[in-house]
């Protein structure tokens, strides 16, 4: 089976500081991978590399079996960022307009959306349960609702892989569970490969198929059952002082 993501001995430096060292990782099609690690462990850098926002310095990355430097199918990849710092909540755009913007790449430069494409937006909004909010301004919604809209924006271009960067920051606890249930559906029913950076490892341990623990180096990468069996000493060595946060959820 083709790997959706294949990282081969990837290292990355900001100026002289090593942020990622020698990362090798494979994500098979249909996987639900959680990337965990303390702050400053290089998680965001890794996502930025995968999204093409940073250029590979050392090693190589393949997406859908193609080298990332010649990869031209960004519509195959959806991206949901950390809500809190990704947009200005006073922005005058309706939910419909935000989701439509997810089709930009598919529609292509210099063109406007067709009727079919607008219908597609309505269908996706319906599937995430946000259809009735389509004419509301995005800033009027709660954090959880906004995040559903951003999932819809990622889904509308029918991606095969969705990358999520701590998507539940700023979402209240009650809606976090719902949000992860929705991700599970996308993974199991639509067979979309998911890569999720998160701190909520306890909440999702029964939904994910793979775990990667990152702290500059990749400490562990296997299926999630193996992760649950990891003993405390191993977790401490990965997380250092933050180990209690992790156990709190278990």
């Amino acid at each position: 089976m083709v790997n959706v993501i294949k990282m081969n001995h990837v290292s990355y430096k900001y100026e002289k500081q090593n942020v990622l060292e020698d990362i090798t990782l494979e994500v098979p099609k249909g996987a639900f991978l959680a990337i965990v690690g303390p702050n400053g462990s290089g998680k965001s850098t890794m996502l930025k590399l995968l999204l093409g926002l940073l250029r590979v310095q050392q090693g190589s990355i393949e997406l859908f079996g193609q080298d990332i430097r010649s990869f031209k199918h960004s519509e195959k990849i959806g991206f949901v960022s950390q809500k809190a710092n990704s947009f200005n909540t006073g922005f005058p755009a309706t939910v419909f307009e935000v989701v439509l913007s997810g089709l930009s790449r598919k529609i292509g430069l210099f063109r406007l959306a067709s009727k079919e494409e607008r219908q597609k937006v309505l269908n996706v909004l319906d599937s995430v349960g946000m259809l009735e909010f389509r004419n509301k301004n995005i800033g009027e919604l709660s954090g959880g609702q906004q995040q559903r809209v951003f999932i819809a924006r990622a889904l509308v271009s029918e991606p095969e892989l969705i990358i999520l960067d701590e998507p539940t920051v700023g979402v209240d606890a009650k809606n976090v569970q719902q949000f992860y249930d929705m991700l599970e559906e996308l993974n199991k029913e639509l067979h979309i490969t998911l890569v999720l950076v998160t701190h909520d490892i306890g909440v999702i341990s029964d939904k994910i198929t793979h775990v990667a623990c990152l702290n500059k180096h990749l400490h562990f990468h296997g299926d999630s059952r193996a992760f649950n069996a990891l003993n405390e000493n191993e977790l401490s060595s990965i997380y250092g002082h933050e180990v209690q946060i992790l156990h709190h959820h278990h």
Partner: protein
Amino acid sequence: MISGLFQYEFLQNAFLTGIIIGAIAPLLGVFVVVRRLSLIADALSHVTLAGIAFSLLLEKKLGVLSGLNPLYMGMGFSVAGALFIERLRSVYKHYQELAIPIILSGGIGLSAIFISIAHGFNTDLFSYLFGSVSAVTRTDLWIILGISLFVIVAIRLLFKELFLLSFDEEHAKASGVPAKFVHFIFIIMVALVIAASMRIVGILLVSSLMTLPVAASIRIAKGFKQTMIYSVIFGEAAVVGGLFLSYYLDWAPGGTIVLLSILILLLSILYKNIRLRIL
């Protein structure tokens, strides 16, 4: 004024220019405001003044460029200033707003020097600062019409990309929007529209035409398209109303247009507050 409109070419020029500017300045202004670049308009208008002063200086001292519309040099300076701001913003990554006072003071400084070398100009500089109905020539009108066509076509063609870039820059880049190219076109458009609006509202007030109608519209509009439509309506109301008022009361048109814009802004805030209280 209605009868004057049929009689006097200068009134026709001012009026037609006003109608064009009243639409494109707020239209582009929507993107300027949501990208939090409102002050860039101010900085560029001062650079435009330097360009105009330079053109008038060359004409007076050297006799070259006589007959050449100072608007061209103003546009040139404005575009150069815009590119320079972009350069500075990437140099001072963590203090991007620094680019604005640097360019703004640079623009005023240059203007002051050009004006002093020339020992003043015959042309009424006052009309460049605060706008004038009688100063708009037929050539100005054609130049402004050309700029407007460029801006409208560019916004139409790059609408999706401009929207995405304004809403969520990181997402735009990740989804393959040619961010640098789109931003470059955008900043050129801003520079050109500022140079074009200057004739009617004047250098000191140009940025208000890009920001005030948008500020009013953002309070009451639902969504981005509606924000654009209301901004243009408010912009037109302020410009057309302001030109009529300034003609009859013999006030500077720039000032009248700006005060009308502020009145519209206050009304939209009031309207929103009343609606919130009723609902």
